[in-house]
């Protein structure tokens, strides 16, 4: 009986944020501490659930490390299946960690400037968790829309004309993407007659040639939608404007949103176009590789040209997307696991940097920050934002050190996790290619990644020197514990990854191995039996 109940854990990462988000709507903004408490509790609960799922998978509770939950109890190709495997659990763990950081940071000010901030935040988490868990394409669309609808609201949070302008462009880009998404889904349905990812993968090898072409066209259109979200060049022009104008905790979560696109591509591509896929195997790999490399190039130019910390963070996100997509395209276990390590460390570092941007802005231009505060204070009500939390001494030293740590991780300098990630990537590219041998593509990628690290160093150093050392107006900012702590925590997680790199890497190796042997996934999803009804009938 208990064994049966375990599988219900799989749907909880979607239900918990949905219910708590709905609950939060009921409380007025006056009960701010209560709202804050509920959202922290709900996010922590999501983390606990993801940790339980991780334990269940690691203890071999589910065969092949793939847990399946049949919503409404219809068997797989017909009903809605939720699937959890090692990669999904990894993302399910990362989401509430970033979420907690961002919510914690919102305590002082950002949670107070709008009305339904915490509800939107929970709905965003719901969409993210759903996108990681879903086993069929149309539900992926639905969860993407949930996530995007919440992110539209959050991008506009802290309402001013710059945010409305950026939000308008962000919404149009994403609505266009949704259209492409639907066209892609329809074409894939036309070609294979199914929307379940495992079923698509099972049918791909046996497709007739016209249907196969239709599948290729459909996937290409679908992937354009994901690539726009993950900001591949030339589909990334919306990103710097949106990220640098969004409020800091929202920008930190948006960093994860680009990774959702990458997650989906990794999932679909390794499933549908695996080595078993007959003549479709590895479809589009070279496009991913080369456009990834061009994206890194674009990011480098952007990094060097940027003066504003928000834009530096945005271009770092673009560089990280490009690096990830081009490494994923090698489709080997070693490269994928290196890519996953890089994704973890770069996501956390860029998110921490996005939170840090606001504090840095206070050093650079205290007057402007104060002005912005008063302009946005219309919704704070009777409680002034500054009174929350305790101001800490040594603020300048903290901001400076946090900046150095983030910069080191993003640029990939030793001894932090960014270096290990890059080292892992180079190692995988050079070692893992006995059969394919590292061709000029691999060497180009290595070169570009090295140059991107160099560009990041230049950009961060120039910015750091100007802000912390050479600035005539550098003045210790007012800093609250609740603003510093989440940044510290996110950076410390990266330090933890550095110390515990061995166990983490072994886990990622297992995740990548099961990703590149999709038979286990397909078998688990398609053979999962429905729960028998009370009368014995299925």
């Amino acid at each position, binding site marked *: 009986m208990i064994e049966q109940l375990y599988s219900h854990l799989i749907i909880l990462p979607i239900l918990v944020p949905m219910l708590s988000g709905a609950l939060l709507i009921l409380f007025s903004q006056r009960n701010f501490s209560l709202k804050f408490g509920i959202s922290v509790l709900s996010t922590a609960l999501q983390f606990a659930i993801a940790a339980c799922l991780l334990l269940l998978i690691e203890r071999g509770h589910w065969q092949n490390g793939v847990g399946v939950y049949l919503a409404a109890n219809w068997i797989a190709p017909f009903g809605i299946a939720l699937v959890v495997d090692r990669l999904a659990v990894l993302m399910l763990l990362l989401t509430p960690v970033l979420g907690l950081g961002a919510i914690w940071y919102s305590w002082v000010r950002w949670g107070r400037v709008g009305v339904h901030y915490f509800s939107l935040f929970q709905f965003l988490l719901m969409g993210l968790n759903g996108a990681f868990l879903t086993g069929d394409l149309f539900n992926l669309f639905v969860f993407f829309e949930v996530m995007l609808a919440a992110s539209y609201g959050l991008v506009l949070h802290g309402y001013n004309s710059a945010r409305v302008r950026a939000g308008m462009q962000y919404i149009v880009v994403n609505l*266009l993407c*949704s259209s492409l998404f639907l066209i892609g889904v329809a074409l894939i349905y036309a070609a294979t007659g199914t929307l379940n990812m495992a079923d698509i993968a099972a049918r791909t090898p046996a497709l007739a040639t016209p249907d196969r072409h239709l599948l290729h066209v459909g996937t290409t259109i679908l992937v354009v939608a994901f690539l726009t979200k993950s900001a591949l060049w030339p589909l990334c022009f919306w990103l710097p404007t949106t990220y640098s104008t969004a409020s800091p905790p929202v920008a930190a979560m948006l960093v994860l949103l680009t990774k959702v696109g990458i997650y989906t591509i990794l999932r679909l591509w390794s499933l549908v176009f695996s080595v078993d896929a007959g003549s479709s195997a590895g479809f589009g790999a070279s496009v991913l590789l080369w456009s990834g490399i061009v994206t890194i190039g674009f990011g480098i130019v952007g990094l060097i040209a940027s003066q504003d910390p928000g834009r530096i963070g945005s271009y770092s996100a673009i560089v990280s997307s490009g690096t990830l997509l081009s490494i994923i395209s090698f489709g080997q276990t070693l490269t994928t696991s290196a890519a996953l390590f890089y994704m973890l460390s770069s996501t956390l570092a860029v998110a921490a940097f996005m939170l840090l941007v606001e504090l840095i802005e206070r050093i650079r231009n205290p007057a402007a920050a104060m002005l912005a505060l008063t302009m946005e204070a219309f919704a704070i009500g009777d409680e002034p934002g500054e009174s929350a939390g305790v101001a800490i001494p040594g603020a300048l030293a903290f901001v400076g050190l946090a900046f150095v740590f983030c910069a080191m991780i993003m640029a990939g300098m030793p001894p932090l996790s960014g270096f290990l990630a890059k080292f892992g990537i180079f190692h995988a590219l050079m070692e893992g290619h006995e059969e394919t041998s590292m061709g000029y593509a691999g060497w180009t990628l290595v070169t570009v990644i090295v140059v991107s690290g160099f560009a990041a160093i230049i950009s961060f150093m120039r910015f750091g020197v100007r802000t912390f050392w050479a600035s005539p107006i550098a003045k210790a900012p007012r800093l609250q514990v609740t603003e510093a702590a989440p940044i510290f925590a996110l950076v410390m997680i990266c330090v933890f990854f550095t110390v515990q790199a061995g166990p983490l890497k072994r886990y990622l190796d297992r995740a990548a191995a099961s990703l590149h042997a999709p038979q286990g996934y397909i078998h688990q999803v398609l053979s999962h039996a429905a729960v028998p009804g009370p009368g014995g009938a299925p």
Partner: protein
Amino acid sequence: MEAVLAISIGVLFGSGVWLVLRPRTFQVITGLLLLSYAVNLFIFLMGHAKLNQAPITPTADIDPAQFADPIPQALVLTAIVIGFASTGLYLVVMLASRGLTGTDHVDGRESST
């Protein structure tokens, strides 16, 4: 039948793309609406256009070729709802932008010409 549908999808999509690229927010939102119509029709056509045929059958003992595919219809329904909601949200943002900047240009300011 399919040719008519295909041509209408093409016309809708083409006009939609052209309108989305225009500088006024009202044109953009009209374009987005046309695009979503085109996409919805497209999903319908993927179920292979069939006239006067039931999508759901009471018995299992049938020839599937005689029936319309119910899944695209379900998908279209969901897509319409979601598309409608997000377009409505865009409308609100558009009005907010009009109120804040005093112009309906997508950049929030008139071009310098």
